[in-house]
């Protein structure tokens, strides 16, 4: 009973995400008593490892649900909506953040096949995770919406699979839709990806049309993994999750040898030794097995305490039998930074533990303690990208019921130092600047650098004009322009990353009535004319509002910040000048006039109780004011200026 209870609670997170989940819990409890599956029944030749890749909303998760149903992995019910998307935020946004995997058993022409579906995150922010997932596969299903056609993310995903030399099976989904035009999509695929029209499978994942054809193609087109059970153990960690009772659960693909309970293994990245407690497959819930053999995909529990011990891309091998690590391992590199602060400082410790719990499951977020005079104690978090940041914030609010202030995102700039003194101080000539306070002076710098991305935009042609103007406005340089069919155009632009971190995607969506899609990939650093802009209130600089910006944008940004600050500071007894300055030069100014009269006209009888309450609250509020010179600035004024604008 004790064991059952423990398992029941460890399932809580899962249960909460499903409505009407009683039956799910029962199924799981029953499975605990099932016999362990003997994985030796599936030799390498009968194994296929594949992923589904698609643009957002093109039906990747629905197709996965159907595949799970048809192979009997899950019961066929109406409830099976995106079974692999376990996070609430994933269900809400229709995206996959954490890759989930499932092993499917399928009999085809008398042979029992083990098909490992390795789900991938659906967004380039998680590009690295996608590429690691793909490295565990030999093929992909490239799902394209029959109505929307190829979108920016389809292109990015295709190239990831193509570069990994995987078998690519194009699947045209949603053919049941009224406006579906599979022929046009087939032509797009032929033109862009050079895949013959007749290789596309037309399906409707929603209605279950042609799903068996997909499975046939998986078996016929995708090669079995190239590996041998007799080789020494070599396993790729392509994902990891954290379980409060069992520690880290690492998802692994076995590239050689076999692995079972009691084996002593080593991480190539950390060189730490572990003893295997449990191995198994995902169906999609964890199902223990006796062993995992070369070519198979499953999970492993080996007493790892933190997800950082099971880094994505790491290679595991048998103790004293080291192997050449699998290529492509990289530590997560944050591309977008934002300050995170509790709304109320008394919530600091709660937020801290929520952050810790969440980062247990997402090692790609970097966390540095930070504090701001305006916002109090908090953290500077690094994210893989904007979506990653948003998803993280949403998970924090939803799963841990914690409300936070997120400041406007910034990107990591670099400076190539020319001052010998500074080089000595930093121990290197190129430094990364995350905080404007660290921005080195122009005189001691030979060059400033900013991160760039290569953006792909796919749009109906009528919006091209507006989109080009938008891109130019964002300092982007056009690299390519291609008609993918008679109506749709693919544009490629090199963007400074900071130009797209705030509201580019919203702007693009609104000027194209939602039809244009956008995706980007890292494109390194470029030289940039960067400056540090200060905001002054009556001549006194406000440290937390200092920003690093491109010279061309200084005026517009300065004006905007001054205007927002003017709206956020209450009028006072004297005139207040709000200025944006670069060095000593003032580039923008707003003036908040002094109060001339604010005394309430009437103060009799019942009013006094109410008035006193208000006055006492104001008196209390004065304690919370931040004094800049003699100007009292409410804390929320900075929050209002620093916070990201709500999406329109």
């Amino acid at each position, binding site marked *: 009973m004790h064991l059952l209870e423990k398992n029941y609670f460890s399932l809580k997170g899962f249960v909460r995400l499903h409505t009407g989940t009683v039956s799910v819990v029962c199924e799981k409890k029953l499975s605990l008593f099932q016999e362990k599956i003997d994985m030796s029944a599936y030799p390498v030749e009968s194994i296929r490892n594949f992923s589904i890749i698609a643009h957002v909303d093109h039906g990747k998760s629905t197709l996965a649900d159907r595949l799970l149903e048809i192979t009997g992995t899950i019961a066929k019910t109406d409830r099976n909506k995106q079974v692999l998307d376990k996070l609430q935020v994933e269900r809400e946004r229709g995206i996959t953040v954490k890759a989930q995997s499932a092993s499917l058993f399928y009999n085809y022409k008398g042979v029992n096949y083990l098909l490992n579906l390795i789900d991938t995150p659906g967004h380039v922010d998680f590009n690295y995770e996608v590429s690691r997932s793909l490295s565990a596969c030999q093929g992909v299903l490239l799902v394209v919406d029959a109505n929307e056609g190829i979108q920016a993310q389809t292109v990015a995903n295709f190239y990831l699979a193509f570069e990994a030399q995987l078998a690519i099976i194009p699947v045209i989904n949603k053919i049941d839709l009224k406006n579906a035009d599979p022929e046009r999509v087939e032509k797009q695929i032929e033109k862009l990806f050079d895949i013959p029209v007749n290789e596309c499978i037309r399906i409707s994942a929603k209605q279950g049309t042609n799903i068996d054809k997909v499975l046939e193609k998986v078996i016929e087109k995708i090669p079995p993994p190239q590996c041998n059970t007799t080789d020494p153990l070599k396993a790729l960690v392509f994902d990891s999750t954290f379980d409060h009772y069992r520690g880290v659960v690492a998802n692994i693909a076995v590239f050689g040898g076999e692995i079972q309970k009691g084996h002593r293994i080593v991480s190539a990245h950390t060189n730490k030794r572990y003893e295997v407690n449990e191995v198994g497959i995902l169906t999609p819930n964890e199902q223990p097995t006796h062993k995992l053999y070369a070519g198979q995909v499953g999970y492993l529990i080996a007493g790892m305490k933190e997800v950082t011990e099971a880094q994505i891309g790491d290679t595991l091998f048998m103790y004293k039998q080291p192997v050449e690590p699998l290529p492509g391992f990289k530590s997560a590199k944050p591309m977008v930074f934002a300050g995170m602060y509790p709304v109320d400082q008394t919530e600091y410790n709660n937020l801290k533990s929520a952050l810790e719990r969440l980062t247990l499951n997402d090692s790609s977020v970097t966390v540095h303690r930070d504090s701001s005079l305006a916002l109090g104690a908090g953290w500077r978090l690094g994210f893989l990208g904007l979506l990653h940041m948003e998803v993280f914030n949403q998970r924090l609010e939803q799963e841990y019921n914690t409300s936070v202030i997120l400041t406007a995102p910034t990107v990591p700039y670099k400076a190539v130092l020319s001052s010998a003194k500074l080089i000595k101080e930093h121990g290197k000539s190129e430094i990364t600047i995350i905080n404007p306070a660290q921005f080195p002076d122009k005189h001691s710098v030979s060059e400033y650098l900013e991160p760039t991305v290569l953006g792909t935009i796919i749009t109906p042609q009528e919006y091209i004009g507006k989109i080009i103007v938008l891109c130019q406005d964002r300092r982007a340089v056009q690299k390519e322009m291609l008609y993918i069919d008679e109506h749709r155009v693919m544009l490629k632009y090199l963007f400074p990353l900071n130009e797209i971190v705030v509201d580019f995607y919203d702007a693009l969506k609104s000027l194209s009535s939602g039809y244009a899609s956008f995706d980007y990939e890292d494109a390194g650093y470029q030289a940039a004319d960067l400056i540090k802009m200060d905001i002054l209130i009556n001549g006194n600089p406000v440290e937390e509002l200092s920003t690093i910006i491109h010279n061309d944008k200084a005026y517009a940004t300065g004006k905007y910040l001054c205007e927002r600050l003017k709206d956020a500071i209450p009028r006072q007894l004297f005139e207040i000048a709000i200025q944006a300055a670069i060095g000593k030069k003032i580039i923008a100014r707003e003036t908040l006039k002094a109060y001339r009269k604010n005394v309430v006209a009437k103060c009799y009888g019942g009013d*006094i109780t109410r008035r006193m309450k208000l006055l006492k609250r104001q*008196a209390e509020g004065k304690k919370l004011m931040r004094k800049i010179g003699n100007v009292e600035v409410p804390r929320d004024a900075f929050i209002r200026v620093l916070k990201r604008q709500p999406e329109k």
Partner: protein
Amino acid sequence: GSGARLRGGVPLVAAAGWYCWYSWGAAATRTSGCCRLCACKGQHPGVRLVGIRGPCAVRAEPGPFCGTAVCPTDTLCPQWPYCRKHCSYCSFNKYVVPAVDEAAVRACLVREAQTLLRLGHVRSVTSVFFGGGTPSLAAPRTIAAVLEAAAEVAYLPAGAEVTLEANPGSADPARLSGFRAAGVNRLSLGVQSLDDAELRLLGREHTAAEARAAVEAARQLFPGRTSLDLIFGLPGQSHEAWARGLEAALGLCDDHLALYQLTLERGTALEAQVRRGALPEPPEELLADMYLSARTALAAAGFHQYEVSNFARKGARSTHNLSYWRAEQYVGVGPGAHGRFVPWGEGGRQREARVQTPHPDAWMREVRSCGHGTRRRAALSPLDQLQEVLALGLRTDEGVTQQRWGLFSPRLSLEAAFGAPGEARELQERGWLRLNGRALRCTPAGLPLLDSLLPALLCQLRRRWNAVQEEDGGGRDSR
């Protein structure tokens, strides 16, 4: 000399209020006996009976007098809750009903007045102010009944100021003389504007001509004691229109004017129209200009500003309102009335903020069953009271006097609270505040900014107050 002086032909026994010099300090001359007014025998906590050492309304009759903040001298504020029509800007507790059972309301007002005056051990009623609603809609005999009731249970000096709020629509000469006969000796007329379009916007039921006639009639019957209420800062009102209106009012008025900037209160028709954008919101700069230029115009006409919105000439200040701004005690009677007094009768020791039940029918039921319809009571701590003393006192030209402050704060003097470096000092340096041996008060330049000065002053007061409490180590018995 005699405290009972004649002013404007009317005896003003209570003109200076029923307070006396007193002190807890060594300088006080301790005397024995009991307070002549409240017969309190010095049993109020923290109070010693002292000899009278200064200007006092009752100096003519010397004798021991406790004269403290807790000495039960009160003003009385009966409320008549009914109106004939809802005004578009008014958020007061008022009811428009087809028929009022006046005898019943009268009986309840009388009963509640007596109950509460007894509860507060009120020995002397220094002034009476009939508010509302529209109290001029009540019959003169109702007014008379309330005054008689007060006189039965407390000392109501013959010359005590008795003000009635009146609307021009119910202020014909016959009614007004009825009110005078009932004991009313001061009239506050809700003229609001002398422009018919503005009156319509405000939802008033009278016209400018009716207002003029009412003022004429009132001045005949209450010479030197008629006040006019005017409103400025109406949506769409220009500076010129206000200047013209004020000029017209100056040509018409007696010796007292109240100029109120329109407050757009939530829940009123006017506020909703402005919020919807159907009417323009008056710009703050314009409102400031209107207020400042009106002050200048009134000063030129010989009026002295004795409170943020109140102006008087020839000494025609309202003693009732002054005692309110001096944070004296008052007993509120009637639906929704507010009061501030110590309920000695129930063994109370602290001043309470009290509110009567707002709805007239419910209020009457309660009065009939328990003698009063008090709905809410909240004890005011000594610091709460001091904060009120400050917030109200600074609205007046006299400010918060050392002497008044001392009544409420025996341990922390005005000097000690605001003389030390801090917010008050800064505000003095900026020329908005003045602290001298007599009082703490706003300068003419500081008065319009009072609501920005107060939070800072409250901060300083709280700090100093807490420091003194700590010095006392949790409270040396001040008795």
